[in-house]
């Protein structure tokens, strides 16, 4: 709230006298204040008010039972493990992607993101089958004489694995833009100055990439705090996480007060993590530079540097990153393996959609298209897919506009509120989707927006905004702003510059943002579940209903159809991009 009301006052003190580009963040800020912060605060107030009186009973209950402390500790531990694995496993993958040319990069990104866009329900169902006691992995292990194949599911390792699997794409995608921005000429320069391969990487390249690593770590950790589907399906009760307790209290026991109180604590934890991040790296280092000076001479920085020096020395001894082609080979091998594992659940459910049997089994029994016939014969399924499409397109359009403006404002503008605004724009990632859905439900009830397509669109925009914003932010940051000056020097006005210079150059990012916004909406379940009210059924909601009621292969067929749609969209984007880049490169060549 404060930032919104305070921004106009910053205008006077701004270094830019006429018009501060930073004000472009306002539509996004206002949108989130209205549809995220306000409803969240309303519902959070429910955690401390009972019949109008203030009470801390729910919090007292949380402190009095060791149950909650243990669940919070487990949630933190699992989120931390997930983050560490995502960074350690994701970094080489992101590095590998960043070494590819633009076209191959998009292809690689597609394969990394495909599992990310696959419904969490379907992925976890796939794990249950692939890693099952009599599943293909267990059989393979038994054939190889490796024990333990029948105990792969329902333990902490599997939960962490499935969560890493879910979050890795996000971590990688967050790191790639930063890695792409590192000037590769620095490496030969370092060599000239006598650094070997190891030192070159650890002391030159790696520190420059830290910004991306830290951002990926923050996003992964905070998103991991709110997980519930994965631990519920592939974990045992020992891996119960806070998200599950919130759902239990709100959905099953209708104890809103305790459910909201748990959400408050989760939210506070997430905010503390963000605060610590801000102290070390500076939130603004993600948003617009300038935060870097802070860490200049701290103990942390010095010890970090000596650690990196040590790593450089070690890896040089190991010759891992030596000049020979071997490091490169290992890296490609690793990336292929990582992509394979990322795609594994997809390899799992695609054949199951074509099963001749009635159950989701792997390998499937026989071949048939009956489940696809069922899908298209059912008005429930076809109606849901049409609705998902319309809602997805509208959501994407709104998200790109307000997210794009915010990213532009953030990339170019200066304000002492940039940290707070950045945090607000990322807040939908920090607030667990279940809390967002419940808060919006409460708010929309007043506005008669329950069970309306508009209600779902607003909810989906809240959910999609941060990722679209981050994509567009990196786009605008990657944009060479000197071009604007060049354009203006050549006599173009602000608007002309925007239309003829900037938009064509950032169109790739805008298309990616639109695509992402669409998919976020297309694959979103929780908001659709609450706001749809049983009358406006999206595809995900329909899948969820069928999974609860009867997990037939129609769900796998639906997932294959979704996959085909995502694939088609990707090809479309790819086509547009390649045509555009051809069109762009021609005049350059002519010149």
């Amino acid at each position, binding site marked *: 709230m404060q930032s919104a009301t305070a921004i106009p006052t910053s205008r006077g003190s701004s270094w830019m006298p006429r018009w501060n580009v930073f004000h472009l963040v306002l539509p996004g800020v206002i949108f989130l204040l209205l549809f995220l912060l306000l409803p969240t605060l309303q519902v959070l107030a429910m955690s401390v008010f009972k019949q109008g009186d203030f009470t801390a009973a729910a919090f007292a209950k949380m402190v009095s039972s060791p*149950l909650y402390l243990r669940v919070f500790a487990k949630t933190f531990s699992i989120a931390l493990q997930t983050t560490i694995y995502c960074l350690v496993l994701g970094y080489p993958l992101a590095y590998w992607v960043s070494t590819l040319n633009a076209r191959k990069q998009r292809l690689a990104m597609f394969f990394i993101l495909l599992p990310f866009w696959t419904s969490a329900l379907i992925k976890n169902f796939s794990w249950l089958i692939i890693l099952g006691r009599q599943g293909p992995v267990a059989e393979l292990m038994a054939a190889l004489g490796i024990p333990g194949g029948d105990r792969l599911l329902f333990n902490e390792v599997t939960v962490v694995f499935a969560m890493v699997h879910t979050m890795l794409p996000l971590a990688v995608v967050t790191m790639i833009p930063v890695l792409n921005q590192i000037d590769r000429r620095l490496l030969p320069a370092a060599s000239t100055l006598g650094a070997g391969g190891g030192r070159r990487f650890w002391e030159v390249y790696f520190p420059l990439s830290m910004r991306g690593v830290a951002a990926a770590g923050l996003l992964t950790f905070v998103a991991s705090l709110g997980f519930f589907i994965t631990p519920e399906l592939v974990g045992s009760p020992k891996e119960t996480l806070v998200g599950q*307790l919130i759902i239990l209290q709100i959905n099953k026991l209708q104890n*809103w007060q305790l459910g909201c109180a748990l959400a408050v604590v989760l939210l506070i934890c997430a905010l503390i993590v963000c605060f610590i991040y801000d102290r070390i790296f500076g939130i603004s280092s993600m948003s617009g530079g300038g935060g870097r000076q802070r860490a200049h001479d701290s103990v942390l920085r010095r010890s970090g540097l000596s650690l990196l020096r040590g790593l450089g020395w070690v890896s040089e001894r190991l010759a891992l990153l030596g000049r020979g082609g071997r490091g490169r080979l290992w890296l490609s091998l690793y990336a292929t393996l990582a992509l394979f594992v990322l795609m594994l659940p997809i390899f799992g459910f695609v054949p199951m959609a074509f099963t001749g049997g009635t159950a989701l*089994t792997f390998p499937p029994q026989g071949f048939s298209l009956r489940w696809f016939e069922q899908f298209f014969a059912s008005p429930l399924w076809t109606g849901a897919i049409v609705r998902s499409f319309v809602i997805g397109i509208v959501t994407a359009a709104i998200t790109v506009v307000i997210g794009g403006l915010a990213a532009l404002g953030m990339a170019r503008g200066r304000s002492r509120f940039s940290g707070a605004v950045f945090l607000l724009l990322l807040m939908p990632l920090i607030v667990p989707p279940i809390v967002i859905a419940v808060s919006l439900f409460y708010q929309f009830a007043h506005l008669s927006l329950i069970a309306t397509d508009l209600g779902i669109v607003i909810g989906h925009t809240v959910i999609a905004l941060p990722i679209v914003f981050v994509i567009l932010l990196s786009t605008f940051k990657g944009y060479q702003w000197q071009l604007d000056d060049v354009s203006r020097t050549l006599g173009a006005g602000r608007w002309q510059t925007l239309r003829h210079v900037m938009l064509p150059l950032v169109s790739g990012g805008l298309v990616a943002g639109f695509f992402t916004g669409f998919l976020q909406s297309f694959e979103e379940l929780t908001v659709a579940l609450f706001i749809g009210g049983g009358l406006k059924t999206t595809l995900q909601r329909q899948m969820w209903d069928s999974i609860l*009621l009867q997990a037939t292969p129609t769900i796998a067929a639906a997932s294959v159809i979704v996959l085909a749609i995502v694939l088609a969209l990707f090809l479309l984007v790819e086509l547009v991009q390649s045509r555009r880049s051809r069109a762009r490169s021609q005049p350059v060549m002519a010149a």
Partner: protein
Amino acid sequence: MKVSRRTLLKLAGSSALASATLPLWSMRSAQAADSITVSDVGGAIAPALRKAFYDPFEKETGIRVVNVAHDSDPVTQFKLLVDSESYIWDVSMVTQDHVARLTEDKNYLADLQLDEVDPSGYVNGAVQSNWLGFSVFAIAMAYRSDAFTGGAPKSWADYWDTQKFPGRRGLYNSPWGMLECALLADGVPRDKLYPLDVDRAFAKLDKIRGDIGVWWNSGAQNTQILQNGEVDLSDTWSARALAAKDSGAPVELVWDGLYSMDGWSIPAGTPRLEQARQFVRFCQRPEQQAIYAGEVANGPSNLKAYDHIPEDRAKLLPSYPKNLEGLAELDSAYWGEHYDELSNRFQEWLLLG
């Protein structure tokens, strides 16, 4: 908590109602003629209901049946439509738990006038003045016959006997219907289950905790773990184990446990009361219930329906007389009162023990 919860539910209900009236406008013309709206649970059950009840009823009476899906807990919507006298439903598919909540402060249900129906030919508890149970399900035990070749478990006591029946076990991650199984295993007679001896049930659960491989959370997951052999032995909701069996997995049921029902109620005050009653009466017919039991693996409440069901199908249904012998009626009123408290206790037991 109570107030905020109520407020929220009220809001939820009013908005759901507001939205539910929208599609109604378009069908008001149909409504004016002979037509009733039935709200059911939707999903995979809806086509079976249409085939067994809605279509034949339309054909016989000329009264059209429009069906809509309601929330999994329709009580709030139900109360609101009666309170606001906007009868968007004339008949609703509800459980006994819902009925209890719809009659506690104020009566929201119309009298069904089922006087001509003789309850003795029905599953116990199916015929009430304001509710007609038509779909019987069981909470029972299921096992993989390929895991117990030397002799199959036959009761909950066998489930607890890990020496005689080794194997990985699954158990429902909720106390609902599950504490009863523990008590049955401990030798509590079927007719003395309620009120539950909760301490005894948890003490019994302490003994099996270490042998539970999977705590399942949803019906679909129950089918899954039985179907792919993730567990050898589990508690189950009968239709769930049968779904695994139908898919070809070697799954067998042990009819030791509980039964409960889904049924029809009419919102008090609906202007189409007569048509609604006519529909409910139609649904107690054995022929119709037999069609329904042929579509979904829930049993008919009218036992005469078994005259119309082939023997090999009948044997799989919970209300088949021989199966019903091993089942006690789940006490919905008890659970309505104690669910919250027992859920919390169960969570603590499971996570801290």
